[in-house]
């Protein structure tokens, strides 16, 4: 078992694109860690740099305390599951799973035994003689995981592990992966662009953008207190309300309302961030006209047209949807109002 330590890692492609930019990161031993960000933010490059498929242009990568920056991928004791699983189409499931042992020239009986044992652990026992093309997406993913496990590596890397599954299977696989990771206790880093996936599975999340980490923290931290407006925008299945506002005499003036900033704050222009989930009807607060009601299942997302051309979203429980056109006054729950510097976008 081993943790991962990245110190000042930059990965620059030959065409000059700086995909990972002077990044420091420590992943603890046995941690389930998510790299989250929009496409092109460098998260996959970072994962490939840890795996050794890309060379860090500067900085150092350590795994289990040993510097592996200049080592070939095969000797880093890092297993990886690719986004397309990369199962070898000409090999059976059993041969695929035992491939890491074949590379090490392990005897055939040992290979078959390891394949059978690993496959049984992942519910693939009856499929050993099939070819990858004869498997469903979920089965292919488990074969890819089994192959990674057969390597008995210290670190497991998963590139977009759920993106090739259909929506229903994705939920099952999420639970499955989390249980597997906990049972194996393997240091695991996975890349995703889906914030819900990261929040659900990871112990800690790094939100990335333009090759840098914007925020590093537990799912709860990242959800409740996004460090800047980028993270605030990115995290949450319903977009966070980011409203232009002004702090004056210790009160926040936003959309014609005066709210409590929840603490002392100097007078300045700010951006107010409130999650739709943390807004509720109140006698005093932001007043607006209901323009759209979207059904999200257990809750509904209500869009309010407020003064100063501001729209505010909030979620309401089922059966409590206000009629379109009615006027509603809403306020954030205490302590759930976030203030961002309107120039830098940083949490203040």
């Amino acid at each position, binding site marked *: 078992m081993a943790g991962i330590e990245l110190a000042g890692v930059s990965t620059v492609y030959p065409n000059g694109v700086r995909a990972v930019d002077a990044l420091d990161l420590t992943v603890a031993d046995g941690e389930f860690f998510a790299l989250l960000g929009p496409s092109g933010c460098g998260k996959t490059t970072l994962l490939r740099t840890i795996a050794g498929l890309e060379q860090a242009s500067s900085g150092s990568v350590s795994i289990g305390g040993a510097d592996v920056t200049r080592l070939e991928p095969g000797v880093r004791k890092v297993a990886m599951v690719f986004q397309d699983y*990369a199962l*070898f189409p000409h090999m059976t499931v059993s041969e695929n799973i035992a491939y890491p042992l074949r590379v090490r020239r392990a005897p055939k009986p040992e290979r078959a035994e390891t394949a059978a044992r690993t496959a049984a652990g992942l519910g693939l026992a009856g499929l050993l003689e099939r070819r990858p093309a004869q498997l469903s997406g979920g089965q292919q993913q488990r074969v890819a995981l089994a192959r990674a496990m057969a390597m008995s590596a210290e670190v497991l890397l998963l590139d977009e592990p759920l993106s090739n599954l259909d929506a229903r299977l994705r939920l099952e696989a999420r639970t499955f992966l989390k249980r597997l990771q906990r049972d194996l206790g393997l240091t695991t880093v996975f890349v995703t662009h889906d914030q819900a996936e990261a929040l659900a599975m990871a112990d800690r999340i790094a939100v990335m953008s333009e090759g840098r980490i914007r925020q590093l923290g537990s799912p709860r931290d990242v959800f409740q207190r996004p460090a800047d407006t980028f993270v605030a925008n990115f995290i949450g299945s319903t977009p966070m309300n980011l409203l232009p506002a002004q702090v004056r005499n210790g009160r926040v003036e936003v959309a014609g309302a005066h709210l409590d900033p929840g603490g002392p704050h100097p007078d300045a222009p700010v951006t107010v961030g409130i999650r739709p989930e943390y807004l509720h009807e109140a006698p005093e607060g932001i007043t607006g006209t209901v323009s759209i009601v979207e059904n999200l299942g257990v809750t509904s997302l209500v869009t309010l047209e407020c003064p100063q051309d501001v729209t505010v979203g909030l979620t309401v429980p089922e059966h409590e949807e206000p009629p379109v056109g009615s006027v509603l006054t809403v306020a954030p729950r205490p302590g759930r109002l976030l203030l961002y510097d309107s120039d830098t976008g940083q949490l203040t």
Partner: protein
Amino acid sequence: MTPRQVARRLAYTAFMAVVLAFFAVPMLWLASAPFDSDPGLGLRWPDWTLTNWQVTFEHPYALSSLVNSVVLCVVATAVTTVFATLAAYTLSRVRIPGRDALLYVLLLLSSVVTGTAAMVPIFVMMFQLGLTNSQYATGLVIAGGLLPAAIFILKDFVDSVPRSYEESARVFGASPTQVLLHVVLPVARPGIATILVWAFVQAWGNFLLPFLLMRDVSSQPAAVLLRTLRDEGGSANLTVIPVFSLLYAIPVVALYLFVSKRYGFRFHGGIKA
């Protein structure tokens, strides 16, 4: 069906029958003439005999020319397939400046500067090297002509093989040789099989280069010998030619059937067979 439709159907069928007959006649001649006691250039029900076969087998050069052909084609095919595979893999995976330009120039030169155009320099070169009358040398020259197109076709094929296969193998610790042997070659097998058969057929049917480089009748391959099969009077030797033609056709058909069964030709790129 209206009479009009019937007429159209009949006309279509008649047309197809004529087209079919046009292509079938030479095949039928190839099947019947070798067994006819008096083979001609026309098609007729044979007067069965095996004399033609006996005469052909007794011909001083007929069988040895087929052996020469096999040697020449095995050399040309092996060289083309091995080098085209390695070159295509490298060109597909390694980023070098001007790679695409290089490929197009190769293809362009090989189709513009054909063997016919380069006939004299090739002969002079091989003559000065003392490599005329050698099946191996001629096979090499043929392979040289086939390589650009083979590399071009195979490179396209290897491009369509996802890189993640190789990266996955590398993560599991495979050396470059292991990646090539365990992953790349098996995955690219249908493409390689296609190139193999294509190269063999091209070399088997090549007349000009062996004709040019093999002045000695005993070393000439079948494609060249076929032209010299005449009797004393100078007219085509119709006892030997039909049998020889049939023997000449067999290896290509056999190779095609074997490779198709063993490796399977598949359509790639968009079409899934």
